[in-house]
Structure formats: C-alpha cells, structure tokens
C-alpha cells in the first residue's frame, strides 16, 4: 500500500559490485528487492544513486523480472517484463519488453508500460513495432465494479 513507500528498501543477492564514484551498484544472482509489500524478483538489479538519497533508480532484469505489491484495498498488483525500472522518488514503474501488468482481474500485455504505483494508474503503454497490439483482457464482473470506482473517484 501507500505506506510501502516510507519503508526501507532491502536488497538480497549473491553478489554486489558497486562504484563509489558513479554511485551505481549491480546486484547479481537471485536478487530480491523488498519495500513493505512491494517485492521485485530478478536475475540482476542495477541501482543508480547518482541523484542522491531517496532518488535511487532500480533497474531489475530477468527472464522475466517479476513485481508484486499489495494495494491499500488488499488487491494485489503483479507485473512481469524483461526489464522493470522502479523510480523511488516519483513512484513510477516502467516495464520494458514482453510487459504484462495485472490488477483487479484486468491484464495488459504489450511492449512497454509505465505505471504510477502510488495512484495505481497506468500512464502509458505502447508498441514500437506495430504487429503486437495492446490487448486488455477484462473479466466481465470487473467492468461494472470499475464503473462505480470511476464514479466515486469522480465525486471525491
């Protein structure tokens, strides 16, 4: 949930190679990132801390890299991609390559997805190459529910 973002970020991995001058680290082999309910599993994670504290960028690569997080309403969001970039400061997730994002029974499959984690909203999706269309698969019962949510959101 939202409180996740006030938690420390724990990274476990077999090895870690980092450079104090460029302030970048590379974690390899069974890498896991945990921050509250946020959990990313990958083969390799690059951390760029050049912008300073709290502005780190985590780039997780895997076959695929897998992200899961529980939302305040208890719903679980999961995402998969060849590369998952997590920007701590603006709480944005960028999925690149065979990207897949599932939340509330709906699932988007495309080349790349940008997702705002705090608002749980999809910001952008797209395909450079035209063949792979953006496919959104909705389970029927979800559509009605989404409508009410949107109306409530509208009123707030």
């Amino acid at each position, binding site marked *: 949930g939202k409180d996740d973002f006030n938690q420390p970020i724990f*990274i476990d991995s077999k090895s*870690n190679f980092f*450079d104090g*001058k460029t302030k970048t680290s590379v974690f390899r082999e069974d890498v896991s990132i945990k921050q509250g309910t946020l959990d990313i599993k990958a083969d390799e994670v690059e951390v760029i801390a050049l912008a300073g*504290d709290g502005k780190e960028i985590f780039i997780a690569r895997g076959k695929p890299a897998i992200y899961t997080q529980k939302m305040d309403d208890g719903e679980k969001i999961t995402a998969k991609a060849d590369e998952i970039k997590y920007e701590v400061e603006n709480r944005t997730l960028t999925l690149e390559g065979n990207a897949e994002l599932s939340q509330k029974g709906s699932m988007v499959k495309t080349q790349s997805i940008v997702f705002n984690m705090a608002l749980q909203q999809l910001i952008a999706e797209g395909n450079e190459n035209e063949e792979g269309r953006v496919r959104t698969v909705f389970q029927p019962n979800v559509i009605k529910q989404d409508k009410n949510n949107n109306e409530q959101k509208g009123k707030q």
Partner: protein
Amino acid sequence: MNRITLSILLLFMLVLGIYVPSWVSDEAAQKTPSVDESLRPNYQAHNMRSTFYNAEGELNHLVYAKKMEHYQLLGFTLFETPQYTIFVENQAEPWQLDAEEGTLYENEIIRLEHEVEIRTLSNKGYVQTIKTEFLEVNLKDRTMMSDQPVEITGQNFVIKSKGFTANLETQQYELKDHVQTVYAPY
C-alpha cells in the same frame, strides 16, 4: 701411488680428522644466538607518528600507533592501536583506518585486526565507513580485502557482506558473498 703420496694423503686425513669437528661445532654455536636475536625487536617506539611520501614527494600516508615494534630479521613491524591516514590521488579528503592491532610487511602490506574501522574524512563520500574484524591493505596500489564479515555504510545505505575487495583510488567495491543492502527511506 708410491709411499710418499700415500703418507701425504694420510697426513691430510689426520689433519682433517682433528679440525673438522671443531669447525662444525663453532658454526652451530654461532646460529643459536641469532635465532633469539630475531625475536627481540630491533627498535620499538611509543606514541609513534611517522609520515610517508611517494616518489613525487606527495604525502602518501601517515601512521600513528600507541606502540610499535620493528623486527628486522622477520621482516615485519607490529603496531598497537595503529591509525593509518591514507591520502588518495584526486580525492580531497584522505581515508582513516583504525584497529586494535596491525602488522606491516616490508612497508607495503598492512594487516589490521580487531575492531577495524575505515572512515572517509569527507562527508560527501558515497561510502562513509567500513567495519570489519580483519583487513589487509596494500599501501602501494591502495587495494584492500577482507575475508571476514564486513559492514559498509554510506549516507543512506548499509551493506552487509562476507568478505570484500575494494580499491580506495577507483572507489570500486566487490562483494562476492553479499548478504544484504538496505536503503533507508527518505
């Protein structure tokens, strides 16, 4: 082999027979004292402070130690609570290394043991402190390594690992047996 050569040979053997044992025993007598000598420090100092410059005359490192004993024959120097200050090229602030004990080999490799702590004296450095129980530092190429658990802290992170290698100059660190890194929330 007429009688004369035979008698000379005999005489020679006789002479050898008498002197050889005494030569050997002399040598043995000489060796035992030198072994004791190497166990006694050649010189020792208290509250020692020394400064080392490199070939270009730039400050290389400083050493302070509560007590120091130099063993010429064994080729090392023992320190009690040594503190090394290492100046690194194009880094404004030096690194400071403290430990309970230190052993310096041929003025190049220093092994620090028990409560070893490395600190950068610049608060802007990405790595601020490194703590471990054992550390070996090469004063020439500024590389260092440990095979003991190590804790590296920076402004907003703490890294735990079993052993590491690092280069103070390039600021590159390699943790082959990394345990966990924690980034503090901002």
